[in-house]
């Protein structure tokens, strides 16, 4: 077998890494390369340098160090029993490629993961070597996201956070029972413990108000995780509940949802069908409701059937239709929290309403300029010169509202 060229390896190891949805490069410490020996900066906002036709952004060079793996996780393209082509980068190859891409302004940094080779510690050490070389040998100040190998020793988890902006360990499946059956070598308990350990480290390194000396930097962009949607039978309520527990327990910055997608050389144990993209989209919306709109996980499913989100309806609108007793809200008086629950009002719109109403009474004309569609919010708000009257409680309200532009989900055959 001829040795693979670097380009062939890149094709294989990028393909192998693309099922991880995370690509964020935001929310880390602000820094730049001025006064340093290398290049790189992070200025708060993440930057998406390109978009692929799947609508996903390309922010980081997202690759695996190797797709050789001793694990046999049924949902994974890299499981040991899959016959995909295998490749392995050297540490230097990844470092050089990252810097070459970064210099050309293709990327914000590196997201490095790996199949498990030899042992968890061996694999984790190799990942850390890449990050360490970028930081110490090249004074690279761009973004680095390292995947945690949960089974690796705690010392390595600690070390990874010294070089990485973000760490992530994937919880993989919403139900722990399904993980046990689909990923026999993985243990949800071990993954949770790794996330717990990172959380404690993050807390420990967070500068206290009274601290004279700032503690050393530790994964300033925090940790995240990913759940595969549609590979086991978990309901949306189970998934969102799981996310809530993960956010609460481990202070995660993000939970990513990845619609289970057909993979080359699939396992016979999992559905080979069109990925449930719409369901994934609704779950992200529900996740947003928890993180930015003050909803508790359970509330989101008030009125939902069998714990499943309505695919045809934005979950916030679905909630509002089920809870008309709290509407309409007066945009000139209601508390911020109540405004956030109006379907069609985003966080920015609410902020603008709250600041503007100190100066004038808001009518529909104002709302037209403050939100995307005033028709959508009309049944749920009272404004100067406007009251929805019986509109709020109309049985056919769903039909009266302007339809949400539906991303069409094509059938495969």
């Amino acid at each position, binding site marked *: 077998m001829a040795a693979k060229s670097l380009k062939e390896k890149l094709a294989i190891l990028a393909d192998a890494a693309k099922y991880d949805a995370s690509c964020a490069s935001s929310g880390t410490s602000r820094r730049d390369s*001025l006064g340093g020996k290398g290049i790189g900066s992070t200025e708060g906002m993440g930057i998406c340098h*390109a978009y*692929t036709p*799947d609508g996903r*952004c390309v922010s980081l060079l*997202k690759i695996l160090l190797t797709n050789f793996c001793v694990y046999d996780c049924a949902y994974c393209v890299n499981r040991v029993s899959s016959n995909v082509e295998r490749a392995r980068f050297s540490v230097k190859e990844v470092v050089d490629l990252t810097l070459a891409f970064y210099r*050309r302004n293709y990327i914000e940094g590196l997201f490095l993961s790996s199949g498990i080779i030899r042992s968890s510690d061996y694999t984790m050490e190799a990942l850390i070597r890449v990050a360490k070389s970028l930081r110490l040998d090249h004074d690279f100040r761009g973004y680095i996201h390292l995947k945690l190998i949960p089974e690796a020793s705690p010392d390595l988890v600690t070390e990874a956070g010294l070089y990485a902006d973000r760490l992530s360990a994937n919880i993989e499946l919403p139900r722990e029972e399904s993980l046990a059956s689909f990923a026999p070598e993985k243990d949800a308990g071990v993954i949770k413990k790794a996330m717990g350990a990172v959380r404690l480290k993050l807390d420990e390194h967070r500068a206290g108000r009274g601290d004279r000396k700032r503690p050393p930097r530790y994964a300033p962009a925090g940790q995240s995780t990913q759940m595969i949607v549609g590979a086991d039978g978990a309901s949306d309520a189970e998934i969102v509940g799981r996310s809530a527990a993960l956010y609460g327990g481990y202070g995660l910055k993000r939970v990513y949802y990845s619609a289970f997608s057909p993979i080359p050389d699939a396992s016979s144990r999992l559905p080979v069908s069109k990925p449930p993209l719409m369901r994934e989209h609704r779950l992200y919306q529900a996740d947003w409701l928890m993180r930015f709109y003050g909803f508790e*996980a359970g509330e989101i499913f008030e009125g939902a059937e069998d714990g499943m989100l309505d695919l045809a309806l934005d979950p916030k609108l679905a909630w509002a239709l089920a809870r008309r007793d709290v509407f309409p809200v007066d945009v000139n008086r209601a508390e911020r929290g109540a405004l956030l629950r109006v379907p069609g009002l985003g966080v920015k719109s609410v902020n603008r309403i709250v600041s*503007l109403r100190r100066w004038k009474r808001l009518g529909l004309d*104002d709302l037209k300029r403050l939100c995307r569609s005033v028709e959508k919010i009309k049944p749920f708000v009272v404004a100067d010169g406007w009251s929805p009257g019986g509109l709020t409680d109309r049985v056919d309200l769903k039909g009266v509202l302007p339809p949400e532009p539906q991303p069409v989900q094509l059938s495969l055959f």
Partner: protein
Amino acid sequence: MHVVSLASETDFDGWRAGARRLRLAGAPPHEAAFSVGGQALFDAPLPAAEGQAFSAPRAFLDLAERVILHRKEDRFDLLYRLLWRLKDEPNLMRHETDADVADALDRAKNVSRAAHKMKAFVRFRPVDAAETAFCAWFEPAHRVAELTAPFFARRFSTMAFSILTPDLCAHWDTQALSFTPGVDRSHAPKGDEIEVFWATYYASTFNPARLKPAMMQSEMPKRYWRNLPEARLIPDLMAQAEQRERAMVRAGPTEPARYAEKALRRVPARSADEDRAPGSLADIAARLDGCRRCDLWRGATQGVPGEGPAQARLMFVGEQPGDQEDLSGKPFVGPAGKLFDRALAEAGIDRSDVYVTNAVKHFKYELRGKRRLHKTPDAGEVQACRWWLDHERRLARPRVIVALGGTAARAVLGKAVAVTKVRGRPLALEDGAEGLVTVHPSYLLRLPDETAKAAAYKAFVEDLRTAGRLARGTAA
């Protein structure tokens, strides 16, 4: 009509000086105009600006600096109109829904977006093989080259580069930024080998099973495509996507290679020994994570085992692990644990001499937003977990068992008792040990009144002293 002459399309200082003069002269918006590079023209001589200053709000100036970078011709007029109106409407800038203000805000947003897209879509190409200097050709949606250049200087401080645009060219020599007039696209540099790697990456990271081209285009508008090397691949990637997905689905599963079967045989089967009596405290610690006697394992991170010498004379039983204990896997490390340690020390007891554990081994909580709030375990959960506690008692054989709080008392005594009624006196336990009930340290933390807290703490330390005496066999 008065016409102010501006030095360039982005001559903010020129606009500001001219607009100030016009407003001082009382020239209404419909009698004022701005022309780039043209001849200034005034119907009547304008008074000099000196000495007659007026102030414009900071919010207006910040906004104007952005808006002037917008490509739409009438931006100077819009800004002058706002400046004019500010005379009578000093709070105008707060009225975000006013037509002029909204228009200006919208243009500023578009300018910011253009600057952000410039940060994203500039593609550098090396000028020489040694990669000592880089060059990029870029066509920004608005005139943001000067605004955005410092970002690139901060990011690539050790790398000399030029960014060429039709409006303006920015140059960084690793020390300072400089600017030269705009050029046309014939000056665009040529790509190198790494660009082929980039294209390879772009094609490989795309998932054909998730085609969403509208999403791509809204974030990466077509106007940028011709200067993005990777965009050349888009038509082919889209055309082949459905076919590739079909092929994956049709191919179906294959037989694993032989090395895979070998690797799979190495995985140890999970043992199912839920009911086997633990042989040691270490055995308990190892098996708690797998405990399914109740449902609390689901929300918790891990089972938190007891800690301390196997032959301890004194065993303390708390209620359940808290947030910190759940994360670290160690008992009594959170705020209540710290208070407990302090009280123990005051009672003359060394924590390393005692065995501490909990009635319930997994953390039970209620989520409030992003916080996990302690929730008292119910009788069923306490009963389920007694299996472990009883084995701990059997294996450690302590002389004295101290139950901290009601839940622990229920677990140790096997029945619900009122802590206040039984606290502080020795109780004979069935296994021959002596029992003692006191409050849980978290109860002390919750007391709002400082005097009550101090008294309760004192009583708690006294109970611990009693326990210490009982353990040493010196109790009265």
